[in-house]
């Protein structure tokens, strides 16, 4: 790992109060009547060589966070500090340069690969673009990486539709790693895969991380997957982080009622692990009309008047490790 990584408190990526609001326009004159607060004040840091998990159900904003960080979606406010630069402030040229340090792995193995390009072209294109490498050297590098992700280099001239879902995801991983990025953002990398393939890919991601000292931002909706793959976990709901803790600590001692409900809802095979079911009633509220105060209060079994009025800050609840929760009741 080269030493040009920022040494400010030793983090690789620092997100400060990130907000992504989508305007809602109505009427003949397309007036902005409101905002969908997809990401509403999210902050976290990732140390080099570690994995941060962003977990939450659909619509909580975790994918939007990932896409805002790489500026595929314009941010509304906040800072994203990566290698001493604020990614949100860079101009197009600087951004292009920095983009090669962040790799992205997508969820859908069927939609994330261009069906008209060969595997070699898909994986090799970033290398061609940024480093101008072509010909035999390009082929060799791509072949080497294919072998590293568990595919045969012979497949370099094949097309995506000739592969299974798990193999396509490996191709996606190779594409994300070809430029040797420092940070890899994995957006639900195993959600669309079969169970027996999920474990292969999760192991692969861990192996690659160890071998090349990668840093991951891991996004998923499955708490069990996140607990295995991540060092630290942030639980998101309606655009906000409700709880943040090291993975093992979160499992051992979930503080926020939402986290507890999530864990309780996961069906268990092992009967000894089935505790009392904490069923969450109701649905996720509309993003256009978020609830006042704590965003979780309409569904929270512990909510009271105070929760309805004021939004709780994310603060340290229990030592000695960092364990933050945004709740008045814990």
């Amino acid at each position: 790992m080269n030493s040009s990584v920022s040494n400010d408190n030793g983090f690789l990526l620092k997100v400060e109060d990130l907000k992504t609001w989508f305007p809602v326009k109505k009427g003949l004159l397309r007036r902005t009547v409101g905002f969908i607060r997809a990401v509403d004040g999210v902050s976290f840091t990732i140390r080099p060589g570690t994995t941060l998990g962003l977990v939450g159900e659909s619509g909580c904003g975790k994918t939007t966070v990932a896409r805002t960080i790489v500026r595929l979606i314009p941010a509304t406010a906040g800072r994203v500090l990566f290698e001493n630069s604020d990614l949100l402030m860079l101009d197009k040229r600087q951004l292009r340069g920095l983009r090669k340090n962040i790799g992205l792995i997508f969820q859908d193995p069927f939609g994330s690969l261009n069906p008209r390009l060969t595997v070699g072209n898909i994986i090799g294109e970033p290398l061609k673009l940024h480093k101008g490498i072509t010909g035999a050297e390009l082929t060799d590098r791509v072949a080497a990486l294919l072998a590293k992700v568990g595919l045969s280099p012979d497949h370099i001239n094949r097309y995506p539709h000739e592969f299974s879902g798990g193999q396509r995801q490996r191709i996606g991983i190779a594409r994300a790693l070809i430029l040797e990025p420092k940070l890899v953002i994995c957006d639900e990398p195993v959600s669309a895969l079969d169970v027996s393939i999920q474990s292969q890919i999760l192991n692969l991601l861990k192996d690659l991380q160890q071998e090349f000292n990668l840093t991951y931002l891991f996004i998923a909706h499955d708490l069990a997957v996140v607990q295995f793959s991540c060092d630290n976990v942030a639980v998101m709901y309606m655009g906000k982080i409700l709880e943040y803790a090291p993975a093992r600590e979160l499992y051992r001692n979930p503080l926020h009622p939402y986290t507890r409900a999530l864990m309780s809802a996961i069906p268990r095979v092992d009967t000894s692990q089935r505790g009392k079911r904490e069923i969450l009633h109701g649905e996720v509220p509309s993003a256009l009309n978020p609830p006042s105060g704590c965003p979780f209060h309409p569904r929270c079994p512990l909510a009271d008047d105070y929760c309805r009025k004021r939004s709780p800050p994310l603060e340290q609840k229990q030592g000695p490790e960092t364990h933050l929760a945004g709740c008045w009741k814990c």
Partner: protein
Amino acid sequence: MSENGTLLSVENLSTHFFTQQGVVRAVQDVSFSVNKSRTFALVGESGCGKSITALSIMRLVPEPQGKIVAGKIIFNGANLLDLSERRMRTIRGNRIAMIFQEPMTSLNPVFTVGFQIAEAIRLHQNKSRAQAWELAEQMLHKVRIPDADQRVTEYPHQMSGGMRQRVMIAMAVSCEPTLLIADEPTTALDVTIQAQILDLLGELQKQNQMSILLITHDLGIVAERADNVAVMYASRIVEVADSRSLFEQPLHPYTQGLLKSRPRLGYTGKRLHTITGTVPEPLYFPAGCKFHPRCPVGCNDKRCQTVEPELRQVAPGRRVACWYAPGYEKPDDPKL
């Protein structure tokens, strides 16, 4: 009436697809039975044939490419495969109902949900339009949709995924079927909504004395909700057992592998157990036992490579298709 007699008995069902590239044997020699008021789970990964099995029971296999080529489906004493299409239509939606994975595409986007439920009711019961509408509202209430009287005039796109799935369930149980086939009913839903939907299905099952054939890939759901389980791999059933025994003591290497490789809360290992290799393509199934190329036990065994094991009973209520399962003859048995 016998409390837990057999409601549905599938015997040696085989469904094939005839394509330009060859014959796809999607379902081969599948046999299982569902008891009254019980939940039976059909578990497997994508491409194993479980959805096609469900479609075959409903006789909704897309023709002319697909065809049920062998077997019997005995429902309430009659073989469904012998019935005329007309008779089958009186059973579909009425005695046997089905709910699907993607509620957005299974509901018609241009009709209100009330209309769709009422349509299902009027097809099978002799009710007037007003009565059917009334009943539709009641059904929405029964599936715990808040403000049912207002929601009944809404369109599918105005509802969330969980609500739409409840609407589907309302449509399915509106005629009080004896068998509900649920094809991955919660895969597209969040885990907290999933728990609500599964609880709802459990309640309806108790109220209506309904059997459920649950098709899923999630072993956790199976463990919590199913009474009996059949595990499918590459178009065949490889293990059948009651839910508890299957998870306490899985006999087939595939089931064992699946259970070990699931990421689960509280797991402290550094790596997950994996099943090497990938699911075979339906056009290129391996010879012998279809699982043998990936099997830690049988990949080098001559018999596993050449002869397909049958599904055999090894204990009361337990069947396995594996040469290494207890109760099978040993390789040097003179009978072979």
